[in-house]
């Protein structure tokens, strides 16, 4: 029950925003903040109350929707989704705080943001294929509108491209889901489909192809990634937080939650290919990021690289790798949100995002610059920060399963370090080249409020990774057993 | 009377096979299709469609007379078809009139306000 309440609480925000017709900007901002805080509090409560036992009956809920086809409203939390469930709630709150660059139509902005939050929370709690797909798609239109209305001058083609790509992917995926459900029952409950007993190997293969294709578009794996860059670069900062923090994880989470455990034999032949996609993502992302002149584009491509580690961890099929992948989803969400927000701050203060025009920020913006450095170090996978743990586990898992791909991924880390250090040298240190930069001030308290929690979490999870890993361990072991046992 | 002539007269009196009617119906239908495709004048196109419907009716009545177990019910259906065709003509000419009033022509290729 508490899960359902958490998922649908954003509706309260939606209604509130519709009611606050004549309220001033301040009221709107604060009420949105208040509403966004509630799911986060609820998730935190769940963590401390049920942390060791997510299967508790008070967290799950299920009733039949279309009984003749075994479609039902089934929600519940498990270790695979909990981290992202938490992150969705957290990043929504951060996005509300970080929405200082949104000046027009603030109410509509928050309304749409809450719809997106509902979809994201739902995806990570859904225990039914159809319900999963519905929540998956519910995030789509809000994101389209967020980019299309509040983005920069290039927003409209970016928004529609984003929509068409991901809609194509998800429709193909839906066809796979429906085939999977109808051929094995009909039954659409994820829990009872694990291992997918009744399906033959051929049927599993036939169903796995559309599902994998759809999910890889969403991730995006490299040849299918062209929607991502435009939409990242043209979005407003707070949308970026959601776009990079949560949206690609819908794809990777789908791989871990559905493709692997439900179709072990069907996915198995594709695992090396997924690992190869991961490596391509890592190396391609690093090289292209190196060539970017735009700071935001650089961060976007670094995201593509990180998603490669997640793919590699998933493809490994062993406990270590999947553990790393599940955790990397969360850590990537933390540091990419951090980086995007700081880039937004820098762009707002200096009026440029071009790396060549920035420089010497450490002197003028010690806090923002320092945290940018922290984020970049996290992205490099420096020990002590959370990303190190997850990335290390992903690579080790990948190395065990696929030595070649694992080695190449380790090389990718070096490439990543190169472009990130290059960026830091130019932006933070370096000489001050523009008068605007010379007169800029440091991030204000509101902005700090948006980035400090992220930085803290990166540190805490880097020192105590078991906080997260203990929760996800049982579920990960289950997945690994299914995929390994086939 | 020479036997050939007798045989010829017998043949003339013999009952016709069903195909004969069906083929006449098919050809008449084909002519109707032809007219409906190539004529510009909407009223002539109506006439051609009436030809098509009559061809179908001929086929129907031929079946009614030849099919062993149908009990001639096809003739009853033919009456229904005639009534439907009459109703179509009534509405059709009314619409042709309305088009003529607004465009001063009933040539189908000149009725082209809408495109795409």
């Amino acid at each position, binding site marked *: 029950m508490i899960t359902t309440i958490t998922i649908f609480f954003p509706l309260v925000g939606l209604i509130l925003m519709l009611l606050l017709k004549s309220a001033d900007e301040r009221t709107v901002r604060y009420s949105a903040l208040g509403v966004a805080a509630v799911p986060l509090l609820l998730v935190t409560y769940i963590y401390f109350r049920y942390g060791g036992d997510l299967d508790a009956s008070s967290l799950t809920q299920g009733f039949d929707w279309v009984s003749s086809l075994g479609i039902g409203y089934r929600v519940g939390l498990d270790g695979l989704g909990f981290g992202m469930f938490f992150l969705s709630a957290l990043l929504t709150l951060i996005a509300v705080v970080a929405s200082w660059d949104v000046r027009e139509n603030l109410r509509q902005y928050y309304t749409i943001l809450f719809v997106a939050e509902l979809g994201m929370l739902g995806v990570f709690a859904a225990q039914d294929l159809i319900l999963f797909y519905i929540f998956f798609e519910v995030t789509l239109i809000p994101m389209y509108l967020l980019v299309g209305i509040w983005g920069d001058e290039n927003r409209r083609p970016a928004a529609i491209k984003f929509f068409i790509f991901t809609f194509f992917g998800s429709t193909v995926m839906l066809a796979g889901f429906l085939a999977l459900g109808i051929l094995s029952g009909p039954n659409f409950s994820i829990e009872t489909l694990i291992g997918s007993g009744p399906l033959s190997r051929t049927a599993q293969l036939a169903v796995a192809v559309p599902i994998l294709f759809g999910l890889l578009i969403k991730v995006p794996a490299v040849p299918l990634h062209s929607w991502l860059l435009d939409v990242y670069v043209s979005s407003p900062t707070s949308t970026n937080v959601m776009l990079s923090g949560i949206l690609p994880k819908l794809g990777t989470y789908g791989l871990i939650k559905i493709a692997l455990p439900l179709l072990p034999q069907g996915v198995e032949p594709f695992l090396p290919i997924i690992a190869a996609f991961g490596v391509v993502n890592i190396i391609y992302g690093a090289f292209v990021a190196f060539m970017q002149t735009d700071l935001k584009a650089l961060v976007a491509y670094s995201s593509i690289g990180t998603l490669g580690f997640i793919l590699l961890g998933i493809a490994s099929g062993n406990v270590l790798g999947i553990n790393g992948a599940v955790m990397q989803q969360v850590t990537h969400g933390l540091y990419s949100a951090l980086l995007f927000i700081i880039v937004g701050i820098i762009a707002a203060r200096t009026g440029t995002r071009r790396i060549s025009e920035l420089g010497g920020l450490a002197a003028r913006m010690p806090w923002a610059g320092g945290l940018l450095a922290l984020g970049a170090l996290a992205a490099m996978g420096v020990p002590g920060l959370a990303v190190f743990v997850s990335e290390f586990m992903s690579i080790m898992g990948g190395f065990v399963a696929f030595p070649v791909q694992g080695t190449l991924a380790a090389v990718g880390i070096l490439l990543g370090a190169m472009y990130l250090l290059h960026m830091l040298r130019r932006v933070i240190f370096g000489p001050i080249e523009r008068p605007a930069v010379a007169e800029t001030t440091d991030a204000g308290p509101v902005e700090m409020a948006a980035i400090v929690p992220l930085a803290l979490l990166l540190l805490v999870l880097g020192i105590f990774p078991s906080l997260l890993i203990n929760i996800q361990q049982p579920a990960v072991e289950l997945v690994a057993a299914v995929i390994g046992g086939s | 009377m020479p036997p050939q002539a007798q045989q010829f007269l017998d043949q003339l009196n013999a009952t016709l096979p069903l195909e004969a009617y069906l083929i006449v119906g098919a050809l008449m239908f084909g*002519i109707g299709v032809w007219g409906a495709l190539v004529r510009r004048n909407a009223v002539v196109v109506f006439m051609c469609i009436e030809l098509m419907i009559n061809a179908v009716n001929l086929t129907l009545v031929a079946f009614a007379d030849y099919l062993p177990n149908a009990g001639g019910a096809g003739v*009853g259906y033919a009456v229904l078809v005639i009534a439907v065709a009459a109703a179509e003509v009534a509405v059709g000419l009314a619409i042709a009139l309305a088009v003529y009033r607004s465009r001063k022509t009933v040539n189908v290729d000149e009725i082209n306000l809408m495109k795409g």
Partner: protein
Amino acid sequence: MVVAFIFLASMTLLCAMGVVLSRNVVHSALFMSGSFLGVAGFFVMLNSPALAAFQVLIYVGAVTVVILFGIMFTQRPQVRRFGSILQRQRWSGFFVAIGVGAFLAYMMGLQNWDYTEPGNGPREVSGLGEILLGVNGAPPIFSLLFEVISILLLVAVIAAIVVSRRKTGEGIDRPGSDREEVSR
């Protein structure tokens, strides 16, 4: 029989050709009624004299007259050139029609119709009446269809009246538009 058949068939088909090929619309209408008469003759041969009577009354009589009225209301002075009565796709239309007619006729001939024999039609008017009421072994659905047809005719009359009727000062005839259209 065969003589009558050949006579009726050539009358029907030639008149049908006449409908398509006449330059004058009125001639088309007269050819059409000739074709309908031929079909009525077939109905007599097919043991359905009552239906033949319907055919003559409704088609040769009523429909032809209505169409002639329609022609009177909707025609401009006649065109002289043959080509101008046809649409642009005259040849493709011709071949499509030839193809359709030939294919249909071929399929009809392909079927084995040995089990059929003539003489099942309702020779008497009362037989047709019984069929239309759906009694005495005729499909009972007729009793419903007969009612539906009457509704259909009523609705068609309403539709025809409402579409063709116009009140003054309304609609598309703005002053001047007539002259403009005709001169063009």
